[in-house]
């Protein structure tokens, strides 16, 4: 076979010709897998010239569990539970993607109650995910206080989840054919209270970080990703929208009840870290407004339309469904043989895997500090990268 297969050792071999006029030596340094700024077990090999980053090589796989292989040996309903463990901050949206795929394949029509509950839950989850991101961004940039503010407010939302679902992180709530259980009687009241509480908190966030001179210095014109490059790099979600591409599946291909609510898609213009920051802050506001529109109008109805115990066999062929998680487009691709209740092949098009590679494009020839800001502004969740 003529195709040359490389290894990491070969990849990080230094060439002699340093292009610096001072004839300084470039060197490789490991950032991670145990590093405070890489949010888990992401390992970045940095090619450094002093403080300047010449190249970022993500080295993945530290939490690779072979979820796609497990998926081939489990039913669709079982696979839902695995998706929680990928992007754990968008757990319910991951569940929803699988459910959407199964329902599309089986042509299950859902009632409004299910769609409303799913949408509200997904938006709540988006809010808590972005709140956590906001806190972590602050911490990555050296301000520890936002971290605790973000977590404090996020807790209230996870409390709501806990009451209805019984879980705070890996929910398994949205299932093919409906939702696991009906919402708790307190749900509507508590959601309203939390939204009322959190709205001024977003302004507080902005006061604490957004207006700060240092934050502006650290984020503006840092890690610029042009729209063309972003599209070619396949990034999705807030990162793509910050580059000025208004691709939001909630708007362009509505699922759930996104076609019934009014919201604006936050779009940046420059594509720098600041735009990514602003887009997410704006998304929190939009999500809150969506929840406010929906929360009073949850219609009555059944919450599960498919018998969970029944064997789910998808029709023969390939099935694909995608939706917008807090980090970008998650697609679930399944190939069924039409006989077995297990897929021949199930594949997740994970937003984080496709987003993480843009770190190199953003960071080339800037400082280590910028790298941290960039990685943070991409908002990666490592288990979803490695799957």
């Amino acid at each position, binding site marked *: 076979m003529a195709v040359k297969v490389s290894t990491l050792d070969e990849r990080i071999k230094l060439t002699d010709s340093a292009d610096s006029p001072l004839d300084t030596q470039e060197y490789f340094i490991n950032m991670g897998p145990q590093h405070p700024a890489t949010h888990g077990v992401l390992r970045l090999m940095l090619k450094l010239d002093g403080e300047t980053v010449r190249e970022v090589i993500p080295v993945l796989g530290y939490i690779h569990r072979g979820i796609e292989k497990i998926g081939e040996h489990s039913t669709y309903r079982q696979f839902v539970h695995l998706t929680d463990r990928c992007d754990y901050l968008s757990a319910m949206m991951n569940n929803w993607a699988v459910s959407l795929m199964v329902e599309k394949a089986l042509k299950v029509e859902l009632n409004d109650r299910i769609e409303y509950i799913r949408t509200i839950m997904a938006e709540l989850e988006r809010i808590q995910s972005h709140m956590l991101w906001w806190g972590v961004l602050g*911490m990555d940039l*050296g301000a520890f*206080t936002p971290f605790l503010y973000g977590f404090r407010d996020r807790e209230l939302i996870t409390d709501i989840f806990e009451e209805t679902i019984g879980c705070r992180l890996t929910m398994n709530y949205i299932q093919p054919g409906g939702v696991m259980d009906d919402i708790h009687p307190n749900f509507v009241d508590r959601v309203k209270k939390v939204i009322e509480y959190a709205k001024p908190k977003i302004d507080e966030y902005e006061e604490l970080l957004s207006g700060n001179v240092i934050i502006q210095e650290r984020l503006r014109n840092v890690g610029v990703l042009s729209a063309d490059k972003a599209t070619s790099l396949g990034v999705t979600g807030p990162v793509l929208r910050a580059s000025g591409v208004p691709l939001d599946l909630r708007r362009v291909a509505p699922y759930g009840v996104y076609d019934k609510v009014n919201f604006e898609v936050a779009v940046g213009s420059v594509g720098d870290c600041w735009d990514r920051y602003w887009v997410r802050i704006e998304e929190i506001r939009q999500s809150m407004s969506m929840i406010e529109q929906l929360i009073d109008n949850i219609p009555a109805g059944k919450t599960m339309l498919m018998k969970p115990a029944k064997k789910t066999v998808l029709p023969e062929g390939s099935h694909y469904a995608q939706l917008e998680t807090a980090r970008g487009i998650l697609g679930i691709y399944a190939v069924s043989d039409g006989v077995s209740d297990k897929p021949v092949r199930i594949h997740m098009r994970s937003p984080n895997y496709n987003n993480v590679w843009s770190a190199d494009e953003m960071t080339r020839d800037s400082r280590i500090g910028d790298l941290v800001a960039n990685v943070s502004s991409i908002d990666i969740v490592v288990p979803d990268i490695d799957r």
Partner: protein
Amino acid sequence: MLDFLFGQLVATHATFDVVTLSDRTTQALAEDPWLAAGYALLGLAGVGGFLSLLGMALIYVERKVAAHFQCRLGPMRVGWHGMLQSVADAIKLLLKEDIIPDRADRVLFLIAPVFSIIATTLGLILIPMSPSLQVVDLNIGVIFISAVSSFGVLGILLAGWSSNNKWSLLGAMRAGAQFISYEISVTLSLLVVTLFAGSLQLSEIVQSQQDGWWIWRGHIVGLVAFFVFLIASTAELNRPPFDLPEAESELTGGFHTEYSGLRFSFFFLAEFINMFIASALAATLFLGGWMPFHIGGLHTFNGLMDLIPPGLWFAGKTTFIIFLIMWVRWTFPRLRVDQLMRLEWKFLLPVGFINLFAAATLVITKLYFFPW
């Protein structure tokens, strides 16, 4: 009328006699060598004890301040409101295994934290805490402190280099660049006050503020110098927003990545004591040190102020500045390396020079006292 009522107090508004511990030792040496030895021992023990106690107290305060900024309680379990938490931490640090990396430069690795702590201790002995509480009062005090404090970076550079860790080296190089740059601004703002006071001796600088503190007696110049000093010395302390040498989200731990246990605690202690020294210096030079709040000419008011012991004044002012530094730490994010350098070389340095020039003009034209 107030003068009539409080006439006696006005009478007590006299000059404060500064007697340092070294003075006492020198005097006693001629008469009673044992007393002199006792004084010297007292000085040593005092500095050692003060160093560790202050370190623990500051760590406790930092944690509490941080906690309340972040809407939480901080340490609450060990002792009343977690008062003994620092003690427990200190014991833990002492008992921890002392790890020396295999490929590290052993000798330098062991020496580096000692350098750091010695530089800090040398700075500490000069601080005038009250007229009778000062270990040594050198006549070149200001220069000595700035010399000794820049000596501390040697420990950090050695630590970063000898660890044989690229992150540590990066941190150390950052520290070196940062110290050398910001040292200039610190010195420039110190020079402003020495120009005003006409002395390099710390006790004399305090005495010279009998009629008002330099922060406003120097008109705007004093204020500018104070802020330049505050910013530059925060940078010298490696504290956020200038904590680049140990920026934990960028360099994992910076220069002390490889340190653990006792040696790590030396760096930690040195950092906190340095914060105290910087705050004390700011208080001494700009806020009058132990000198009570005086306004030139208002004898009654000054007399009332004298009721509060000088030691308390010093403690209060220092605490205030320490709180300021902590406040900044728990609010601001971190600068980037090039921005840090830009701030110093393109902003603080020109401002410092212009300010020094203005100060010299004020001193020559004798404009720096209050009109009365």
